[in-house]
């Protein structure tokens, strides 16, 4: 599926490390990803696979002193933000990319009224607007009662807080909204409401969305394309319908089993067996190999290039089960990834 719209966000082989007391953590190991204007893209992976780190890297929000982008590029609407200074970041955040976070209680300032927290975004990004009126509009937009402008976060339910957090981000008038597990802290009914709201908002505002989740079910209902990430590496990506129709990477297959809550003979929920990878080592081969039910000798030796699976170049995977051909390599380049 050739994308006609220009990319709003591009990550190109990004490597990011954290320095910790226990040593270096390689959180992103050559992550590449593209979101086009207006597009809804999912980023899926187990907990600890580097999703939040990737999202934060896009806004320069990883800890300034302990994190470092070692290689690769991050482009926002074509502008390279990989090496921005803190002052430049202050000018760049919020627009055109804004972000909502996982736990809506801890991510709202507990002692500031909801309306004020929204107003701060407006004053920063659209100062000529009539702030109070605009706060009202935004609160209405996320379908909260207007009286909540004067409420404090602790007075709201989980779902309402997530809406409030959404209003804070939307007040920046973003062209891309990054939502980092926006429904993980919520119960199932509220999850569905928030997802429906996100879909509505995207249609109404025409903004792109990068939806981060560990739950493939959420991606199915909300995203056109998706990336599957493990150990800071994208292992599979493509149009949602293609990946869902024929998941290729054993890791993706494992995630599908977990999402459908398949039970094994003992009635336990299926999870992918084994331990998450040690990010302190530079893995030579595929990071998933030690846990992969289909691991082969090659897997430990090197990471394969991407191979395109579907006709129309809409689905690609990096796995030795699908050795890349020359044609597929050029196709991958045309896909704009890897």
């Amino acid at each position: 599926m050739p994308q006609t719209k220009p990319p709003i966000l591009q990550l190109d082989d990004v490597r990011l490390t954290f320095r910790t007391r226990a040593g270096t953590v390689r959180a992103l190991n050559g992550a590449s990803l593209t979101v086009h204007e207006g597009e809804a893209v999912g980023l899926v992976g187990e907990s600890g696979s580097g999703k939040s780190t990737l999202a934060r890297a896009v806004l320069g929000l990883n800890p300034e002193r302990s994190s470092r982008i070692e290689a690769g590029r991050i482009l926002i609407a074509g502008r390279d933000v990989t090496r921005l200074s803190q002052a430049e970041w202050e000018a760049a955040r919020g627009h055109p990319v804004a972000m909502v976070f996982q736990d809506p209680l801890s991510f709202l300032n507990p002692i500031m009224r909801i309306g004020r927290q929204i107003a701060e975004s407006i004053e920063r990004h659209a100062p000529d607007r009539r702030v109070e009126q605009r706060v009202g509009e935004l609160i209405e937009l996320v379908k909260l009662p207007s009286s909540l402008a004067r409420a404090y976060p602790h007075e709201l339910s989980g779902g309402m807080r997530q809406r409030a957090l959404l209003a804070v981000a939307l007040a920046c008038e973003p062209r891309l909204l990054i939502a980092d597990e926006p429904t993980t802290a919520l119960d199932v009914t509220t999850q569905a409401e928030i997802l429906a709201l996100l879909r509505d908002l995207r249609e109404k505002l025409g903004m792109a969305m990068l939806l981060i989740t560990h739950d493939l079910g959420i991606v199915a209902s909300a995203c056109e394309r998706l990336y599957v990430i493990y150990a800071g590496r994208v292992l599979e990506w493509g149009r949602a319908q293609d990946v869902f129709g024929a998941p290729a990477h054993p890791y993706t297959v494992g995630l599908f089993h977990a999402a459908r809550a398949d039970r094994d003979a003992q009635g336990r929920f299926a999870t992918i067996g084994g331990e998450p990878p040690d990010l302190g080592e530079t893995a030579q081969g595929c990071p998933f190999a030690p846990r992969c039910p289909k691991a082969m000798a090659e897997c430990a030796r090197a990471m394969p290039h991407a191979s395109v699976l579907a006709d129309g170049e809409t689905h690609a995977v990096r796995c030795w089960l699908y050795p890349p051909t020359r044609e597929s390599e050029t196709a991958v380049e045309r896909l704009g990834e890897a």
Partner: protein
Amino acid sequence: MRRFLVARLGWAIPVILAILIVNFLIIHIVPGNPIQALIGDFPAPPGYADQVRHEFGLDRPVLTQLGLYLLNLAKGQLGFSFANRQPVLGLIIERAQFTLLLMLPALAAAALLGIVMALAAAPRAGSLYDSGLTALSLVGFSLPIFWLGQLLVIVFAIKLRLLPAQGMFSLRTRLTGWAYILDVGWHLILPMFAVTIYYVAIVARVARASVLDALSQDFVLTAKAKGLSRRHVLWRHVLPNALIPVVTVIGYNFGYSLTGAILVETVFAWPGLGNLFITSIGNRDYPVLQGIFLLTAIAVVIANVATDLIYAALDPRVRAAGFRHA
């Protein structure tokens, strides 16, 4: 809010009463003789001591004395100072003013300085500036205040002859109006400096920890993500959240500051409550000691209630809890 206040103050009355009774008994159990202290070493006629003892009611059983004291207290009478030949209430109020004159500006300055220092240091945790500040506040905190006071006197009063060493007024002149105020201010500098250093160290330590804690909170990330400047995030999001524990420390210290100045007042001969306390112990001046205990207990209670109110003003979550429980 009203019910919260009533509940807190209602609880305070039995607490203060208990403090008074315990202190009354302690003072009277501790050996020492107020009459001897009062008459001094002069040879007095044999009946005189007994007469004085009877005059002040000191020949009655301790429990009777306690009962009488509480009865008088209920009538608003704090008694009469043997040593100062003056009603206790007036004496204590006069001295408390001098103490407040010393402590209020010192505490305010310490609070401001401590918070600003912490705000500057915490975002650069681990830097040279931050480590320096931590080390300094540790030193300031552990310096004995009388030692620091004497050091200040030696350097600024005796060696450099810049500031007066002792007291609150220049003794040989009778000043009025602005000259009087300036003179008191002049005498105030050194003792206030000593107190400020001590409290700055305390406030800076607590404030640094709570600013660091607030900085690591998730909402700081939201504030940054919307593009707010570092300064805006620090002053509008981090500081108000960090103030909550700092206010507690300042508020509770404030309650004790009335008598907390004992050492400084002694070193600088500042005529405040602390000074009165020490001389009254020497004189076994029971009514004055009792009065100081009463005032301190009341001050601590009021400071704690005020702290809770400020707390509630800063934190809507506390407000909500307060309404529900009180």
